[in-house]
């Protein structure tokens, strides 16, 4: 199992599958390449989903939360941050009042979203190279 990330647009469609060769089952390292994708697609960016590739509840780590916050400060707006385990998906957004990340519901086309979440799980099962969606 390998942690994997998906950059998606405002409609939930895949922009970029982030599968660096140095990722592990518990960590995706900082990546200039990922940042370049986020910056280049900032006008259509909806968020970034990533896996915690095991069964159980999907909650962000402390490192996840500081990444969410840093990227939003860099790009100047809020995004949706789904955390995906093999058995659950929870989406998080920043509360603009408290600045805490709280659970939120996505409202994407269910067929598109469910397909992408399953593909994200599948890509977490086998290591592959980076690919644009």
């Amino acid at each position, binding site marked *: 199992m390998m942690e994997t990330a998906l950059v998606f647009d405002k409609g939930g469609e895949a922009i970029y599958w982030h599968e660096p060769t140095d990722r592990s089952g518990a960590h995706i390292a900082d990546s200039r390449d990922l940042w370049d994708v986020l910056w280049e697609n900032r006008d259509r960016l909806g968020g970034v989903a990533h896996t915690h590739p095991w069964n159980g509840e999907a909650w962000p780590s402390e490192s996840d939360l500081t990444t969410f916050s840093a990227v939003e400060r*860099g790009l100047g707006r809020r995004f949706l941050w789904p955390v995906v385990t093999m058995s659950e998906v929870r989406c998080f957004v920043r509360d603009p009042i408290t600045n805490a990340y709280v659970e939120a519901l996505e409202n994407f086309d269910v067929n598109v979203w469910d397909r992408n979440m399953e593909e994200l799980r599948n890509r977490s099962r086998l290591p592959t190279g980076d690919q644009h969606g």
Partner: protein
Amino acid sequence: MDEMIAVPVVQPGMAKLTITYNGQQGDLPDPVSYDSTDADIKQMATESIRTGYVPGIDAVPDCDLKDYVIDRFPARDDVPFNRLSARPKTPFGFPLDT
């Protein structure tokens, strides 16, 4: 006509610092030492954004570059000067060192 002599904007040992913040991107007007620490570079960038000193980035008085990283790009043939970039970090998961 006198021969024109190209004068490099960024001297050896110095670097152009590009900052991305609040959806905007700009270069610090003054070169900075390429060997500056990440902490020093982030402090310079923070103060510059807070005061509106970076062309292309509107002043943000409460600018916070916590959880930013500094990328370093040495001079090369097609870009003959050092470059630094201050941008948000992007790791996910559970770092092994925490």
